[in-house]
């Protein structure tokens, strides 16, 4: 199933362009056509591309990714490890909406969680779709917009108490597959919710997940957006998320990356109107030959906005973690308050972490702080734990987990915090992560 390594970058891209044509009509067809045009004009990022130069995609180019031909028939038992009790669940399997595995919620209760394609005539989708995730210069976004089969539409018009769980499952197929999850989230004024966007794989498949998510926060809306990427360690994952925050709205992000041979998460938050706030917490915990890249950008485009970011990378084995976080304070964004911190833990002599906090300020009257640290397991803490009888390995794993827990604990769903923590500790004990 694995193509020979002689495949070139161009051939790999060409193969992706031969995706499965998706029939749509109306407004979406026009966007797809435009995306097709852009996808053909673009290519994978050049190696010297400033935003990509640290990200080694060469292992991606060694595979031929075929379109997903049919919906894999999964039962709830197949995905039981990922289920979150008391949540509103929507399951996407290989980029296709799995109605049987999903709850159906309609707008009567102030929350809609549905297939994107089924509700394509909803004016809220038409108004917002592909508005934030622009594909003119982004081949991945263009490919997703051209080839996404279905996705999730989440509309929040009340205070939703149950977490909304969008579970994207990639299965193992005959051929390595290109999968295009898509998600559009609209949070109406004064509404609030917790959204868990999860990417997971089954049975060691080699897939290429290329996801696009757009989040629109209206005035004084609040969203806690949890992103969990725990794909198979053989998979590839590129995720683009674009967020727009209107007046007084609050966007809280907790993004966790554990899986993937190569994974990349681009998170772009625009604090568009006065008093909007964003908190971005991120964690990449990787080992072996994994590469995990997080690129974030926060645009302070209006006065009186706040942003607070804490990103952590933990790299073991010969893994390579990358964090690049740009904060841009635009002209007129007076009273900006921004804190950015990048903290990193190297667990092996062969692991590698790049951390690039960046501030660009075009305005006076702002308070911006940023910093980065990189270190190893604390020797005193290690000795303390050993002196209490813990083996070196156990003590190191406990301290590694503790470093990660500061981020994981921010997930406002205790069940998920516990299951993720357990998975991490178990996997580390087995030497997987």
């Amino acid at each position, binding site marked *: 199933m694995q193509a020979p390594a002689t495949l070139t970058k161009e051939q790999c891209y060409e193969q992706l362009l031969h995706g499965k044509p998706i029939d749509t009509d109306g407004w979406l067809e026009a966007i797809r056509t435009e995306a097709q045009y852009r996808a053909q004009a673009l290519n994978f990022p050049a190696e010297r591309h400033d935003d990509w130069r640290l990200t080694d995609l060469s292992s991606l180019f060694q595979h031929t990714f075929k379109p997903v031909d049919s919906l894999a028939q999964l039962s709830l038992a197949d995905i039981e490890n990922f289920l979150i009790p008391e949540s509103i669940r929507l399951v996407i399997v290989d980029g296709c909406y799995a109605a049987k595995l999903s709850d159906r919620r309609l707008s009567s209760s102030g929350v809609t969680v549905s297939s994107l394609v089924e509700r394509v005539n909803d004016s809220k989708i038409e108004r917002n779709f592909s508005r934030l995730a622009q594909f003119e210069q982004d081949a991945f976004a263009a490919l997703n917009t051209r080839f996404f089969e279905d996705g999730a539409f989440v509309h929040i018009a009340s205070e939703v108490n149950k977490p909304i769980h969008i579970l994207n499952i990639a299965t193992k197929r005959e051929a390595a597959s290109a999968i295009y999850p898509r998600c559009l989230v609209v949070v109406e004024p004064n509404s609030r919710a917790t959204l868990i966007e999860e990417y997971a794989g089954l049975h060691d498949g080699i897939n290429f997940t290329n996801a696009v998510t757009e989040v629109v926060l209206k005035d004084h809306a609040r969203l806690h957006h949890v992103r969990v990427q725990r794909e198979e360690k053989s998979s590839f994952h590129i995720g683009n998320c674009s967020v727009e925050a209107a007046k007084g709205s609050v966007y809280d992000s907790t993004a966790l990356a554990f899986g993937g041979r190569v994974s990349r998460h681009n998170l772009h938050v625009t604090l568009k109107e006065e008093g909007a706030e964003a908190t971005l917490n991120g964690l990449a915990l990787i080992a072996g030959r994994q590469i995990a890249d997080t690129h974030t950008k926060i645009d302070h485009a209006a006065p009186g906005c706040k942003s607070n970011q804490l990103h952590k990378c933990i790299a073991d084995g010969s893994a390579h973690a990358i964090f690049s976080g740009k904060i841009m304070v635009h002209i007129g964004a007076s009273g900006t308050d921004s804190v950015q911190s990048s903290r990193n833990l190297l667990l092996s002599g062969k692991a590698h972490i790049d951390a690039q906090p960046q501030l660009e300020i075009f305005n006076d009257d702002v308070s911006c702080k940023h910093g980065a640290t990189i270190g190893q397991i*604390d*020797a*005193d*803490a290690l*000795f*303390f*734990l*050993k*002196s*209490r*009888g*813990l*083996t*070196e390995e*156990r*003590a190191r794993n*406990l*301290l590694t*987990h*503790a*470093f*990660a*827990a*500061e981020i994981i*604990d921010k997930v406002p769903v205790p069940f998920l915090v516990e299951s993720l923590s357990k998975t991490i500790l178990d996997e580390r004990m087995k030497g997987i992560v």
Partner: protein
Amino acid sequence: MINKDSRIVLEVKNLKAVVAGVEILKGVDLTVRAGEVHAIMGVNGSGKSTLSKVLAGHPDYTVTGGTAMFEGKDLFTLEPEERARAGLFLAFQYPVEIPGVSNSALLRLAYNTLQNERGLEELDPLEFDDLVQEKIKVVEMDPSFLNRSVNEGFSGGEKKRNEILQMAILEPKLAILDETDSGLDIDALRIVANGVNSLLSPDNAVVMVTHYQRLLNYIVPDFVHVMSAGRIVKTGGKELALELEARGYDWLKEAA
């Protein structure tokens, strides 16, 4: 309690150790029998804290000579965790904060590791909670501290009480208390001392490393040793501590 016939828990002979290339211990001899309480006193830099760290296996210290037998085992062939499992406990002078690891989780992990070692059943979180609720009374600690990260945001006194709670859970054969009294106000000192006293038995032993005689009013030693320049230069009963309080250490330096 001195009983000349009780078993030897720790026997240190001519112990020498270096840190960062500097010799700190220059031939320490110390024998501790079950049931005994020893105090090791001395000025800063005399080597008393180094002795406790060397015995616990701190990686910064290198043993360059001598032997230490603990419960019949050659201590210096054991990793720090093996020493702990064999029943050695060090109460740290500066307990480390470990954000992200809850106190109760650490206690249970440590306890179950020892249970395993002893061939006994591990306790699940509920069973363990019963045990820890009982033990926590020993140090008069608020149970809310169990759910907090290890030592994070604890006051000096709370950290030291937490060390003694760990000792109460792990029930060591030999507890080395490294300046456990430093930074304690009188109430905290009394609580910590009561905790230690309640854990003493004819089967275990305590070595206290301290600057001050004050602690010894609460935990009464059978032996007081004075360290100077990396050696034990004088050994006596509890009255030696009072003499040190009155006369200082200088007269012993001359004797050494």
